[in-house]
Structures are given as structure tokens and as C-alpha cells.
């Protein structure tokens, strides 16, 4: 299946083909209008947004031309945070990182999900089996560990003065995930003594696999089949995805087909080669899981322009892998003074939380930034504090070509006198 073909286009094509057939077969020609006009009811069966709304995901080093030439796409697509309201990401705009692999063409009637390894009773489920079991629906963000990193393949566009919130922070999204708690399934299978990890595996062309400590599996992980009220989108794991709330995106295995209960991490390619963070001492930190508190102002943000002086609502998103967002502070003077922002319901654990604060622009230069605190009391750090954690200075963060994993520093936006807004990270 080519995911780039919309259902509507498919319908139009099929409709045209059918009309053609009808004309060919019928002895009397149909009126011209009936041949070409799509069935209005058919068009309304699955709604589409106004053609005037143009907000789309953009590729990060993912040059579609390379893809057309059958070359692998290096990374993925970022979500347009600056255009979104509320705390849910529309499913059509959820960010994608799948290391260049297209979604596999999975039929939920054929798809099987296996739990085996160090369990008393190995079990195999169909998607319908899972839907018979007690379900939960929870708001959770999923974020790539490389999101907002100043280094790495997407570094130049993230650091650019003209960067938008999509360029800087677009590898995070929030959905209402519905499914069965993994703890329930593991209890049914009977986890044996000595089991310490699980290995989760997808059905994509690379059979992506990821080791996860069993504590997380028994805590709040979900074997999800629903996303924002409908089946998970193919590019997000249809028909099943493992959701590991608050943990680096790579653990949220899409197209989930197997969980093996084991007694050690399996040292899969992504966890030993791609996702450890290399620091200047030459040592790599592997198996980092939980994402720290992070926030970003999405309005006004990079690339936007304030039309005139006067009142604006500052609005943004805050989230933390440590729990719920407890507080967001906003500064309009580059961090000299801070004011508490208002948190908008729902304020859910390990979910995007919408915040807002009133602001009146006096026409002078201003630097807007937000800082969040989660319910563990962890405060979003400054760039200097992140550098310290890395045993480096800010210059290193500016210059490294490596991904700075879990980079959650405060994001400043500079408002110029002409109303233009630009990225002021460094």
C-alpha cells in the first residue's frame, strides 16, 4: 500500500474506473455528470479538513526525492506543533520516525501477537482477542529521544535562526491510546522467576526489536490498538503498538508482533548502535529510557510574525516522562522574570499539557520562553545545565555532529521590533 495515496484519491480513481466500465458495458451512454462527479455521500463517509487548512508534517533529512529513487529515507517527519491547539495531536499529523521503512501491509485478521519466553503459559492473540480483554484509554505523548537535539542529522535545521517549532520540537506528539495493559497479559502468561527484561518486536521489514526492563512492562505499558478513537494509523503501528508512557520513542514498538520475556537485554541494533548517547569522554550511555520535563511555546514561535502591538495569548505545550506537569512558568524578558502560566485540562500523566499566559507586546524586542516542572519536582533545565550534565560546555552542544539525546533545555524565541519571531537557542 502506498500511504501517500489518500483514500479520497483512491475512491476517485476507483470511481472513475467503475464509471468507465459502466459506460463500456451499458448500451446507452450515461450523462457526462454522472461519469465524473464523485458520490457526495461517499466523500463525507470519512471526513477531511478544509482545503484551506494546509498544515502538514515536514521531512527531516527525509528528502522525498530520494525515496522516489528507491533510496532509503534516513529519518522521518516532524509534526507542525505551531499550528496545533489543545493537547492532542491529530493522528494525520503525528510525527513519524521509522528509519526509512514504510508501514508493513498488515491485515488485522491475519496478524498475531505472541507472548513467550520465561512464562508458564505462552499465549498467542488476534487483535479481536485483545479487544475482549479489559481496556484502558490514556493520554500519552510519544517523543523521539533526538527531538530538539542541536546535534545530529537534523541539527542544522533545528539550530537555524528561521527554525519553526516544528523544526525545533516536531518529533513529539500526543494521542489518546486505547488497549490492554501489558501487565494483564503478562499475568495471564505467568512471568517466571528470574525474568528481568522483555524483548518487544515489530512486524516491519527490519523486525525492529527493543529490550525493555520488565518493571516498565508490569507498570504502565499498554498493548494499544486504538489511537484517538479509531484504529491506530498504519504509520503509527496498525494494528498493534506497544506504548511505553514517558519513555524514548524507540521503545514504543510499532506493528507489535511478539514479546519475549527474558533475563537480559538482547543488545538489539537500535539499543547498542543508534540510541546510546556518546559523550566527550568517549563513553556511551546506553539504555536511557525516561524523557525529562520539556516545554516549548508554540505561539508566538519561530517563523511567525506579530501583526501589531497589543494583546497576545502565549500558548505552548509541556510534558514529562516523569509524570504529570505541575507547573509552567513563562518569561517575556529572556529569563529575568517569570510568571506562572495557566495549565489547561486535561493535565494527564506523561502527556502533553497545554499552557497559556497573557502577554501584551509593547513593540520592543522581547525573548519569550517557558520552563516546566513535573510532579516529581524535576525542573526543565537551561542549556548551560544540560551542557553540565554532558560534562561539556555550551559550545560543545552547538558544534557536535552527534545527537544530544533527551535534550530538554529551555527554548527561547526572540521577538524582533518588526514583529518577526526567531529561534534564539544559541
Amino acid at each position, binding site marked *: 500500500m502506498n500511504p501517500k495515496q489518500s483514500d479520497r484519491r483512491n475512491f476517485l480513481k476507483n470511481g472513475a474506473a467503475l464509471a468507465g466500465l459502466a459506460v463500456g458495458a451499458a448500451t446507452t451512454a450515461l450523462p457526462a455528470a454522472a461519469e465524473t462527479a464523485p458520490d457526495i455521500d461517499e466523500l463525507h463517509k470519512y471526513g477531511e479538513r478544509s482545503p484551506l487548512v494546509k498544515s502538514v508534517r515536514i521531512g527531516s533529512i527525509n528528502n522525498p526525492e530520494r525515496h522516489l529513487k528507491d533510496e532509503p529515507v534516513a529519518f522521518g517527519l516532524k509534526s507542525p506543533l505551531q499550528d496545533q491547539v489543545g493537547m492532542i495531536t491529530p493522528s494525520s499529523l503525528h510525527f513519524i520516525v521509522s528509519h526509512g521503512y514504510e508501514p508493513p501491509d498488515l491485515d488485522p485478521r491475519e496478524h498475531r501477537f505472541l507472548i513467550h519466553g520465561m512464562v508458564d503459559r505462552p499465549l498467542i492473540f488476534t487483535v479481536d482477542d485483545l479487544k475482549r480483554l479489559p481496556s484502558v484509554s490514556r493520554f500519552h505523548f510519544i517523543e523521539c529521544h533526538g527531538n530538539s537535539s542541536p546535534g545530529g542529522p537534523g541539527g542544522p535545521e533545528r539550530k537555524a535562526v528561521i527554525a519553526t517549532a516544528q523544526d525545533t520540537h516536531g518529533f513529539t506528539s500526543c494521542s489518546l491510546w486505547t488497549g490492554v495493559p501489558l501487565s494483564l497479559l503478562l499475568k495471564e502468561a505467568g512471568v517466571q522467576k528470574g525474568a528481568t527484561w522483555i524483548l518487544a*518486536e515489530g512486524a516491519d521489514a527490519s*523486525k525492529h526489536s527493543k529490550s525493555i526492563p520488565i*518493571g516498565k512492562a508490569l507498570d504502565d505499558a499498554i498493548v494499544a490498538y486504538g489511537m484517538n478513537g479509531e484504529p491506530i494509523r498504519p504509520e503509527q503501528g496498525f494494528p498493534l503498538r506497544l506504548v511505553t508512557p514517558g519513555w524514548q520513542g524507540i521503545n514504543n514498538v510499532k506493528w507489535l508482533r511478539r514479546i519475549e520475556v527474558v533475563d537480559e537485554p538482547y*543488545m538489539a541494533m537500535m539499543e547498542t548502535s543508534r540510541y546510546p548517547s556518546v559523550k566527550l569522554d568517549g*563513553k556511551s550511555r546506553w539504555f536511557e529510557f525516561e524523557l525529562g520535563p520539556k516545554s516549548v511555546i508554540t505561539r508566538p514561535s519561530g517563523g511567525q510574525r506579530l501583526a501589531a502591538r497589543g494583546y497576545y495569548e502565549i500558548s505552548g505545550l509541556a510534558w514529562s516522562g516523569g509524570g504529570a506537569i505541575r507547573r509552567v512558568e513563562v518569561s517575556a524578558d529572556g529569563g529575568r522574570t517569570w510568571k506562572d502560566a495557566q495549565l489547561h485540562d486535561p493535565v494527564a500523566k506523561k502527556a502533553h499539557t497545554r499552557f497559556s499566559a497573557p502577554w501584551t507586546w509593547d513593540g520592543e524586542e522581547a525573548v519569550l520562553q517557558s520552563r516546566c516542572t513535573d510532579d516529581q519536582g524535576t525542573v526543565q533545565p537551561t542549556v548551560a545545565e544540560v551542557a553540565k*550534565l554532558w560534562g561539556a560546555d555550551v559550545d560543545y552542544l552547538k*558544534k557536535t555532529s552527534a545527537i544530544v539525546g533527551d535534550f530538554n533545555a529551555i527554548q527561547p524565541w526572540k521577538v524582533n521590533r518588526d514583529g518577526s519571531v526567531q529561534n534564539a537557542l544559541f
Partner: protein
Amino acid sequence: MRFSKLLAVGIALLASRAALAQTPSYKGVGRTPTQEEIQTMDISAGPDGKGLPAGQGTAKEGAPLFAAKCAVCHGANAEGAKIGPRLTGGQAEIDSLKTLQPVRTVGGYWPYATSVWDYINRAMPRNQAGTLSPSEVYALTAFILAKSNIIKEDDVMDAKTLPKVQMPNRNGFVPPRYQDVVDEHKRGCKQGVCP
């Protein structure tokens, strides 16, 4: 009067709830997989060799396979090409990890040789995965390791020898023992820095 009415209602409620209140049994939801089903789906190999199948191969045997199936993307000597990354490496790459341009390759970065077998077996050749026999995967793994001077051309790689191969960057990870990962996480360590 009032009390007994309440009691009656209470008892009726309790009775009608009983069926729902019992700890439900999910027996019959899902089924026991056959041994064969598990075997076909279970493709993973762990760092101590768990899951590695029978079969064997040397770098010499891997050379023609690599030329036929991998070189187009990874270069004739696994040095990397337009599409596929470089696979070879050693001390120079390990030294690069301390710079602003760290280079990670199979030979110069990966801590376990079993991961190479596991990854080729599950994911390569890209978009034709699952077409190689276990012995072919051993031979291709041997080819990449030999090109990085980690093993010799004639060393036989199989389920016993592969887990014993010492990868040059094996000690480049924090925490050094994966057994400590869970504990460090519980203590709230971040990026190797513990509170």
C-alpha cells in the same frame, strides 16, 4: 422498617453484582501457540548466544555472498557507499568518539558480535530480509568482523564461537554492566550521572 428495606436492597444488589464482582478468568481469550509457531516467530539472538541457531560460516565463505547481496549498498569491502553505512572500523573510530564528529560502525562501535548476526538476520539485505540461511548470516557476520581485523579469515563463526568474540568497543558503555541498568534507572540516574 427503613433499615430492613435498605438491607433487602443491599442484598439484592450484592446478589446481582456477584457475577461481575468475581475475579474474572480470561481463559479462552487467546490460545496456546504451537511449538512451531513460536519457532518461526522467535528470531532473536542474545549477547550470550541464546537463540543462535545451528549453522556456521567463515569470512572466506562470506566474501562472495557479500559481493552478491550487500556490496551494492555497503561497498565491496563494507567501507560504506551511497545508501548503506560503513560497517568496518576499529581504533580510529573508537578515538573519534571523543571528538565533535564521532563515527559509529559495526567494527568500531558495536559491543557484541551476536548483535551483528541478529541484525543481519532480521533486517538485511534491506527490504529482502529473511532470505538468508543461518549459515549465510554466520558467514556474512564473519566477513564484516574479518574486514575489521577482529577475527581471521578462516575463523569459524557459529553459536558457540560468535558470543566469545571480543568487540573492540565492548568497554565503551556506561554502565559497563547491563545488570546495573535497571538499578541506575531506579536511582534516578540520567546520562550516567547519578544523584
